């Protein structure tokens, strides 16, 4: 854990203030470890490594306990993602409707594989195992919104629109 902390980018004072605000807001909640991480990630897009000690202190847990929670769950990121987060469903229903082709398309046309962020920092692609939109497979989630019956063309249009909103290149 030592090496992880020392190699990671230090959080800015603003980020630390957001971490502290989330922790103090939820400090009296029972079993607040996950809710705190969700609150921090909702604010910052990730959970900075400095948050681990602070959550541990607040909840009277060991740093190892909190680190364990943070790294156990697929949702939580320890580093900032791209401007947009695209989750592509890899589960059976979407496979039955060709979700693998979407993964290939993202690699070939956008140069980004699952779990990676594209070179311009615009889009992070993450796998997800079911979005509950299985009657309209394949499904993706872009910045928290679900899209159904996603073809390669529709995906390009979604990404283009998202990138425009952040001033990125299409």
């Amino acid at each position: 854990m030592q090496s992880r902390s020392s190699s990671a980018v230090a959080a800015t004072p603003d980020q630390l203030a957001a971490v502290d605000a989330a922790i103090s807001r939820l400090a009296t909640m029972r079993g607040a470890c996950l809710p705190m991480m969700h609150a921090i990630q909702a604010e910052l897009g990730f959970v900075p490594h400095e948050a681990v000690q602070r959550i541990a202190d607040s909840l009277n847990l060991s740093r190892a306990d909190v680190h364990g929670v943070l790294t156990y769950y697929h949702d939580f990121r320890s580093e900032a993602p791209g401007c947009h987060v695209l989750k592509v469903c890899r589960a059976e229903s979407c496979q039955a409707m060709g979700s693998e082709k979407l993964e290939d398309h993202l690699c070939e046309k956008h140069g980004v594989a699952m779990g990676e962020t594209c070179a311009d920092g615009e889009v992070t692609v993450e796998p997800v195992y079911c979005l509950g939109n299985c009657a309209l497979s394949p499904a993706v989630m872009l910045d928290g919104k679900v899209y159904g019956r996603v073809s390669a063309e529709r995906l390009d249009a979604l990404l283009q629109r998202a990138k425009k909103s952040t001033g990125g290149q299409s």
Partner: protein
Amino acid sequence: MSVTIYVPCDSAALSLGANEVADAVVREAGSRNLEVQLVRNGSRGMLWLETMLEVATDAGRIAYGPVTEGDVASLFDADVMAGGEHALRLGKTDDLPWMQKQTRLTFARVGVTDPVSLDDYSEHGGLVGLKKALTMEPSAIVEAVVASGLRGRGGAGFPAGIKWRTVLGAAADQKYIACNADEGDSGTFSDRMIMEGDPYVLLEGMVIAGLAVDATEGYIYLRSEYPDAYVVLTSAIERARAAGWLGSDVLGSGKAFDVHVRLGAGSYVCGEETAMLESLEGKRGIVRAKPPLPALEGLWGKPTVVNNVMTLAAIPYILDQGGEAYAAYGTGRSLGTLPYQLAGNIKQGGLVEVPLGVTIRELLYDFGGGSATGRPIRAIQVGGPLGAYLPESKFDTPADYESLSAAGGLLGHGGIVAFDDTVDMSKMARYAMEFCAIESCGKCTPCRIGSTRGVEVVDRLVEGKNRKKDEALLRDLCDTLTSASLCAMGGLTPLPVLSALDHFPEDFAKSE
């Protein structure tokens, strides 16, 4: 005169542009000086027709679909407000064959009402079950649920009433109701649809469960992949508290019950009840050894009813109409109705609630209309990623607990994923092992290590250098997973793997 137009806010409808349709309706009506009352309802479950717009007319609600943003102007040109003719006009919603063939007990209000409207809920039969329960002894509520024959809809199928009886009999200063809304199985979305489309039926079911076992607090463990459901649930809980349906004095009875929502964080195994309890407590979602049963030592060590969303949402009907009324539906020991979900490569995907015992073929063809691609359906997976792959020869199996089990499968949460004849079943078997490796909580060795070894053995088997030996090894490994895993994650992963191998051996022998 104002006309009511319904545009669903279900996230499946949103995924095809329902919000844009709703905006266009308001815009068009405004530009034509027409008075429209827009209601965002749940979905009727005909998801292939989303966005399905409905108009309230004297003759009943008229449906149009699938409507896109660009169709809205032409709908108004065709006098949609009076139910006018249009290429997308489907007819009266209640008369559509998809609706006619269903028995909607749990989903009675979904798609009909505004999901968060308290008035809509009570005007459409809501709260009747709860009001009855408030006049009953806890044991009488439990016995009504026992009489209904309702079994756990999350997949395990354990009789709900028996579980409640155990919790009622446990002495403790605090008990809990924990609702499992971690609907992680691919091909399932009924929990999501009820939480987005009729959240109060779930809350009512939880309050009744609380009255039955003397619990005053409930938690809904909702998967983070359902952000829209989270918004609807939190809004519904706030409104229910303000109206006195939840809180320290439920409907003026002097009895207390409150509900909290907690979000998961993308872990499939947290749908296993003990891992879910760990996660609710703010820990890693690691499976607990049983015993002790959660009914005796559950959330924070207290007696806890852990039920799936569908189980709890079936409760208000049972208390309203009586356990026997519910048990009048279904077959054998699979009583009541089940909201089945049709997914994957299916032409008419969606949700149908019918009595247990309907055959897979009826679901796939009468409701589903065959594959989406128009090719033959070669395989289906019933019951999520831990369910068996079944070939066409098994399609006449009734989709109930016992029949599917006898056919080598499991009913699970009632989701059916269809695959056409382009599917490579060796890839699906490999994926089952891969998924187990990704999602294993890591507590027990067979699941944690066996899943990774499983991927490797499937790869070698398909490579075909020593087929006989590798097949024997794969079967041996599956036997270890089945027999020695701590929970269903490792214990049932062999089901999709071996069913694929048994029913579709040719897909594993392509290198020959």
